[in-house]
């Protein structure tokens, strides 16, 4: 299984929180060691005298980025399980702009002010108190303009999705942009800060070269495709498929449809003609060849209580779709046992116009004929859960994933 590992399931909450605490410790130490506890050092950035903020920030971003996308390319890290800040374009830009104003007046950002206060800087302490006040005021006033706060919501949108470019190309472009900015910063420091660039360590040029090489390597490594990702999950997931732990009885699907506490997403992967003839009420039509493209959207469903059920006429196409979704780390995916044919066998017994075909059909064919393409308007498309008392072994187990709602900064 690729990283990140399910820490809460593996270690339990206290140890998981200890890991977060250690990461925070390293974060605080590095901020302090870079001089970010000193407001005048931070503010100097905006008068071009000392570009430490930009250098540290962008070095950190590009170093982390190259390491992340190298790991993703090698299949060590599953990018679908990495938290990517959702894009809320307009509130993000306005909020960022307001933060910039606060930065130049107050001299810190929230992370650096914590380190400043704890190393005895009184201006840092006042900034933290101000920050807490601002956060409090936001919570009390966001209700007045919630619509704006949620505007420009593009969800999980990466620069690769936006520009339709491969990861490696974007990573390389960003690295070269950063190197250009570092060069520009040093020129500004020479002009405005009277810094002697000759005294700067030569090693930084080697570092720049290393970053550029790393970025170009990401292009050559490429991305694992769905089949390669499935190969990583197969040792764990193939037995579940063989032991029929993920094929749910029509009765269990009916119960799930009636359960308000589940966010049930039914995906019908058959042809459009079959879908139009008959489908379960509420099932979305998603042809097999479009399943992979739909993954980013599916991952936006709330992680905690969403259950996906894929279905085809029997189980062949549904199992293919299941493998794609599992390989792309969609959680809680199940297959409708026996497919739509089995569903009809159970629920269409009182509808004489839905008749079995005289001879058994081939694989992935409907085993019933319909008088008209009524879609979900047959009784069997929406059976009442109270009228059916079916016996089955319940198989849906909600695998609660890492809580993504708090990602990034909270």
């Amino acid at each position, binding site marked *: 299984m690729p*990283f990140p590992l399910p*820490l809460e399931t593996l270690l339990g909450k206290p140890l*998981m929180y200890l*890991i977060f*605490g250690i990461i*925070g410790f*390293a974060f605080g*130490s590095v901020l*302090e060691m*870079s001089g970010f506890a000193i407001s005048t050092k931070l*503010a100097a950035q*905006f008068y071009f005298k000392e*570009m430490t903020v930009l250098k540290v920030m*962008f*070095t*950190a*971003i590009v170093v*982390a980025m190259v390491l992340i996308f190298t*790991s993703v390319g090698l299949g*060590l890290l599953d990018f679908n399980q990495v*938290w990517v*800040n959702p894009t809320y374009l307009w509130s993000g830009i*306005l*909020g*960022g*702009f*307001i933060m*910039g104003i*606060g*930065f130049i007046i*107050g*001299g*810190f950002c*929230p*992370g650096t002010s*914590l*380190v400043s206060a*704890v*190393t005895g800087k009184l*201006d840092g302490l*006042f*900034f*933290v108190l*101000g*920050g807490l*006040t*601002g*956060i409090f005021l936001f*919570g009390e006033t966001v209700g007045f303009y919630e619509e704006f706060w949620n505007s420009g919501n*593009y969800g999980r*949108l*990466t*620069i690769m*999705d*936006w520009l339709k470019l491969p990861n490696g190309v974007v990573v390389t472009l960003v690295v070269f942009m950063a190197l250009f900015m570092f060069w520009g910063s040093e020129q500004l420091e020479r002009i405005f800060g009277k810094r002697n660039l000759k005294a700067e360590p030569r090693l930084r040029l080697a*570092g720049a070269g290393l970053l550029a090489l790393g970025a170009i390597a990401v292009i050559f490594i490429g991305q694992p495709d769905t089949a390669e990702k499935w190969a990583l999950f197969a040792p764990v997931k193939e037995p579940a498929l063989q032991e029929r732990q993920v094929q749910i009885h029509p009765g269990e699907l009916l119960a799930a449809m009636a359960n308000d506490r589940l966010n049930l997403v039914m995906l019908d992967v058959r042809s459009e003609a079959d879908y139009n003839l008959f489908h379960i009420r509420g099932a979305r039509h998603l042809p097999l060849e479009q399943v992979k493209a739909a993954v980013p959207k599916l991952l936006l469903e709330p992680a905690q209580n969403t259950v996906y059920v894929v279905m085809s006429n029997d189980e062949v196409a549904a199992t293919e779709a299941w493998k794609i979704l599992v390989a792309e780390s969609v959680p809680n995916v199940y297959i409708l046992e026996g497919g739509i044919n089995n569903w009809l066998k159970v629920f269409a017994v009182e509808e004489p116009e839905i008749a079995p075909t005289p001879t058994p059909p081939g694989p992935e064919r409907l085993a019933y004929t319909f008088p008209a393409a009524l879609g979900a308007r047959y009784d069997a498309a929406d059976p009442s859960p109270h009228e059916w008392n079916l016996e089955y072994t319940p198989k849906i187990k909600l695998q609660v994933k890492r809580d993504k709602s*708090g990602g*990034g*900064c*909270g």
Partner: protein
Amino acid sequence: MKTRGKGRSLNLKAALFNRPEKPYLHPYLGGALLGVVLFLAFFLTGNGLGASGGLNRLIVFVQDQVAPEHVDRNAYLLKMAGGDKNPLDDWIIPMVFGTLAGGFVSGWRHGRLKIATHKGPGISVRTRWLMAFVGGAIMGYGARMARGCTSGQALSGGAVLSVGSWAFMFAVFGGAYLLAYFVRKLWN
């Protein structure tokens, strides 16, 4: 006995505050280390770094103690503290306390624990405190509007190439550079 007691407290003070001060890391080296920490955070946990979200949860925790009915009527606060939800039960809380501890230990080890106020030469200490408070309040408000601060949006979202985080980052630098000239007396 008295002098010994005094001597001991002096020793403690000296041990904390009077260590030889060491120079800061070169910005590129500091940045590279920060990048490795950020990468490890994503690699091990799937989450990046954060700060303002943790402060937010601390505030909501206090609000939930003082006025739980108020929290229950506010959709934004409800997400963190509604019903029996504990706003402190989140990964960002140990991270914030870790950040505080890390900053303190590093400041101590490098002889940089000093009670001090850093400011431009042209303003009084009190003005600096006031401005730090006001700037902090503006920053805190903006950070929550943008759903993250420099750590959670710019660093973390930047490294995983989120479009919104990059737009946010340019907005932060834009806002600060735009106003820098008008508040130059604070810093120069």
